[in-house]
């Protein structure tokens, strides 16, 4: 069996996002997109995680985001995994 | 007829300088006067004149010193912190008797403060922020039109007296736009036999303020004082609005003078005898003009965007003859018409009692 694919969760602080689009541009897996219809309190069409399952946890979005919008977590499916 | 355009005060200064014959502009960016530097960056080269963005305010003022020494009409502009940096240079320029124009679009202070309008640099401008005994001729415009006109005229005044002239404005006057009639009058030109042009057959010219031989500096000082006396005699200006029968004089300059006028109008509408004395020259201060009203005046209210710096000059003029009150705001706050009116009412209430 192939090495189990790791899963990740991106926590997005919408109100910090300024829709600069850098995370979108640098994400290798097209996980992110700017909202087409939602805006935050500052009026920015903030970033949305549109393909969460595709995320490989590479942290590119984390590093390029000038506004520290993201937190990244590795999700382990622990259903009795460790005996 | 002359052109009428919508411009902000900073740009109006720029165009005024160009029409006043400014040959060289040396500036360094600072809010709220950036539009002036930007205007000069575009328009001075178009007129084949000199625009240099200096590396600092210190460099800018010393470039002005150089250009003025070489006989050019030279100018710099800044806002409060930047003007503080120019104080050594201003003292040198005054000491060497060089004509030049400096614009201070004041902002909130002290320190980095903020970029809102203020008049907290009055003492610096009027008493001398640099070292030694010297005076600037200080003009205080109150409209975009005057930002333009006074700047143009400042070059003539500077040349006439070989003295630095300051336009003391504030962030509001710099930023606000008004329709403006552009000046068409030609600058007055004087011959500058003292300028550095290469000595060309005459005795050497020296631009200097250093006089190491005993007594010589003092002679220079006395000559400066004599010049200041002449300036005070010839150039003192104030704008009197309904002062003829006023019992309360509002004394204010620049932005505050506009507000004071509105208050005076409103008071008059209510039957109160209120006038406005607006100093146009802050140095020389219009002492005699205010004194000429003292027989009728019962109260004076000074309105400023400072802790009350001009109050001292008002008190020096009235010498205890009438009470001098103060209403002001600081740190970028601008007095409101209602606030001034309330203070005026309070004072007038005292009068009627």
């Amino acid at each position, binding site marked *: 069996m192939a090495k189990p694919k790791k899963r990740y969760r991106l926590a997005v602080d919408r109100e910090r996002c300024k829709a600069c689009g850098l995370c979108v541009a640098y994400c290798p897996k097209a996980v992110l997109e700017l909202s*087409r219809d939602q805006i935050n*309190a500052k*009026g920015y069409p903030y970033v949305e995680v549109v393909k969460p399952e595709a995320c490989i946890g590479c942290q590119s979005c984390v590093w390029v985001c000038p506004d520290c919008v993201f937190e990244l977590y590795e999700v382990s499916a622990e259903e009795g995994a460790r005996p | 007829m002359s052109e009428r355009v919508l411009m902000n005060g900073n740009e109006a200064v720029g165009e005024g300088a160009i029409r006043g014959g400014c040959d060289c502009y040396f500036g360094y960016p600072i809010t709220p006067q950036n539009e002036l530097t930007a205007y000069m960056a575009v328009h001075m080269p178009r007129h084949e004149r000199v625009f240099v963005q200096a590396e600092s305010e210190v460099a800018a003022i010393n470039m002005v010193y150089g250009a003025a020494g070489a006989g050019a009409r030279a100018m710099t502009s800044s806002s409060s912190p930047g003007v503080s940096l120019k104080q050594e240079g201003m003292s040198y320029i005054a000491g060497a008797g060089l004509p030049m124009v400096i614009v201070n679009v004041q902002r909130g202070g002290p320190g980095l403060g903020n*970029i809102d309008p203020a008049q907290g640099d009055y003492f610096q401008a009027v008493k001398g922020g640099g070292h030694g005994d010297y005076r600037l001729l200080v003009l205080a415009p109150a409209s975009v039109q005057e930002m333009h006109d006074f700047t143009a005229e400042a070059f003539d005044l500077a040349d006439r007296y070989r003295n630095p002239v300051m336009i003391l404005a504030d962030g509001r006057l710099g930023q606000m*736009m008004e329709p403006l009639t552009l000046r068409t009058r030609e600058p007055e030109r004087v011959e500058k036999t003292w300028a550095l042009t290469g000595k060309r057959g005459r005795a050497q010219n020296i631009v200097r303020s250093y006089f190491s031989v005993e007594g010589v500096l003092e002679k220079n000082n006395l000559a400066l004082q004599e010049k200041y006396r002449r300036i005070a005699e010839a150039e003192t200006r104030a704008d009197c609005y309904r002062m003829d029968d006023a019992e309360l004089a509002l004394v204010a300059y620049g932005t505050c003078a506009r507000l004071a006028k509105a208050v005076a109008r409103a008071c008059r509408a209510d039957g109160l005898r209120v006038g406005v004395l607006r100093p146009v020259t802050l140095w020389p201060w219009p002492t005699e003009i205010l004194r000429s009203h003292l027989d009728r005046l019962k109260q004076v209210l000074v309105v400023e965007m400072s802790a009350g710096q001009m109050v001292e000059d008002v008190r020096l003029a009235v010498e205890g003859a009438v009470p001098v009150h103060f209403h002001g705001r600081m740190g970028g706050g601008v007095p409101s018409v209602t606030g001034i009116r309330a203070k005026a009412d309070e004072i007038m209430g005292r009068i009627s009692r």
Partner: protein
Amino acid sequence: MKDERVIFSGTGGQGLMFIGKLFAQTAMEFYPHVTFMPSYGAEVRGGTSHCRVVLSGEEIASPVVEIADSIVVMNQPSLDRFLPALQPGGRVVYNASMVQAPDMAGGAAIGPPATEWALAMGDIRVANVVMLGAYVRLVGIFPFETADRAIADFSAAKGPDAQALNRQALKRGWDAADRVESA
């Protein structure tokens, strides 16, 4: 000739200065005295920003609008801040995409969802022009053609596409202003 004192307000990037200046410039043909006063805000980016235009038949003593005849607000903090300055019976133009309908005792209010419309038109940056269109109609100083010519002139330098977009936004706003909510 009635005085008009109007405040345009929103966040830094929303183009309030642009529409305020455009309005003042255009109004110069109709009023002898005009002042335009930007809030040049904090030196750093991103604060709220507003500008004020005063039109008058008489000398304008103060370019500061203490009591406004109209306010044009792009975001909620702007409404909250300037509604108290509106005189009774005054006009409010608010960006319904980001501002809740104001609770007014009288006067006129219009709330075009300017940001949404602008996004839909493909450029969030023309939301301001939508607002201008609505305001200009509401205040009724000059006809649509004058406003249209002005926006066309002002945006000409940005190229024909941008110009067309701006004119379209103006029209959208103008059209919205027939649905005045309270009077």
